[in-house]
């Protein structure tokens, strides 16, 4: 054994696979988190109306959350199959040629993100719904008396009241997105940890796993883990500053 000094960290800077994984983590994170939270907000707004069978919808929205990553990824691998998958079969009717959801870069990242979106949208919607139900009715009444339309009420009453909740979901989703691991691991049809043949959907968590458990470079894996932690702290600081700015501006 040899003293490696900071070599495990310095080699990260000219490690193309690391930066590839970092980029993939960022893009998959954006593709999965932004639509997920936007849809969750819309869904919560609808669930906040007086509904028939509202309990049914709430249970349904939470069903994906109760599914394990392994089961969800298995289904989505089958659904996203290039030759026999249901999604390409459906696209065929709309006149879109078969998409290679495994090997093409953006389709594969969208497919991996869709697993994340499917599992977490309902969960976030229920969090938003709980916060929406705590908004006092008087605020809406006075807004309506002042002539605010429903859309204006949503913008100027609902959204500001939900600010702490939105911050919470953004932080939790960001942490989750930076650690996406199971979905890309199990989405790979070749059962490797490389995130596809050309590392096209390898995330940082998956790269860490590949370095540590496949290539047996535990030192490098640990260095990657610490670098991920530092990136997460940076994101946390940015989040904090933005939320401070938002609070100060109102």
């Amino acid at each position, binding site marked *: 054994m040899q003293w490696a000094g900071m070599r495990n960290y310095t080699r990260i800077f000219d490690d193309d696979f690391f930066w590839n994984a970092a980029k993939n983590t960022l893009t998959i994170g954006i593709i999965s988190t932004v639509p997920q939270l936007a849809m969750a907000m*819309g*869904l919560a707004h*609808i*669930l*906040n*109306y*007086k*509904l028939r069978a509202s309990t049914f*919808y709430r249970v*349904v*929205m939470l*069903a*994906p959350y109760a*599914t394990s990553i392994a*089961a*969800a990824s*298995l*289904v*989505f691998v*089958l*659904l996203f199959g290039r*030759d*026999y*998958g*249901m999604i390409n*079969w459906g696209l065929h009717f709309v006149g879109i040629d078969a998409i290679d959801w495994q090997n093409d870069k953006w389709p594969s990242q969208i497919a991996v993100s869709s697993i994340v979106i*499917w599992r977490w*949208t*309902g969960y976030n919607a229920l*969090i938003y719904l*709980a*916060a*929406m*139900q*705590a*908004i006092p*009715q008087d605020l*809406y*009444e006075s*807004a*309506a*008396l002042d002539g605010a339309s*429903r859309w204006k*009420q949503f913008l100027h*009453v*609902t959204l500001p009241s939900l600010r*702490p*909740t939105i911050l*919470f979901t953004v*932080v939790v989703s960001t942490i989750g997105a930076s650690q996406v691991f199971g979905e890309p691991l199990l989405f790979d049809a070749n059962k490797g940890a490389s995130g596809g043949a050309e590392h096209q959907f390898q995330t940082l968590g998956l790269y860490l796993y590949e370095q540590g458990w496949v290539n047996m470079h535990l030192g490098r894996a640990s260095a990657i883990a610490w670098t991920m932690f530092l990136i997460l702290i940076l994101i946390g600081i940015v989040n904090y500053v933005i939320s401070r700015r938002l609070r100060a501006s109102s």
Partner: protein
Amino acid sequence: MTTTLTKPAADADPQPPKRVRRPKSARAGGQMHAGPIAYVILALFTIGSLLPLVWTAIAASRDNQRLAQTPPPFWFGGNLFHNLDIAWNDANLGKAFINTTFVAGVSALTIVFLSTIAGFAFAKLRFMAAAR
């Protein structure tokens, strides 16, 4: 963070007492009935949430050969008990069930126990370097 989420929800009154002077135009937010568009959107989300789950059940009742054909199967086949037999006998599903139950039970009990006493400590006890 969690407290700000759950506490108001618990206090929330699902049906606020009816006020006498409430103009019709002022009814808003949680008071409004959902329109047909809301139900259409909800139906789409319901299908999207349940389709992968239902399709897993369909796939569980089919064989590999049928799953590798277009169009994919849309209804249950007759292979369910054969697949269950393989899962139980060859893939050792029973053992996996026991393992899962054990891990889930022990971790859930431990988490609830530790969280309860830790929550009490954070809320009630004074100690060095506490938040307040």
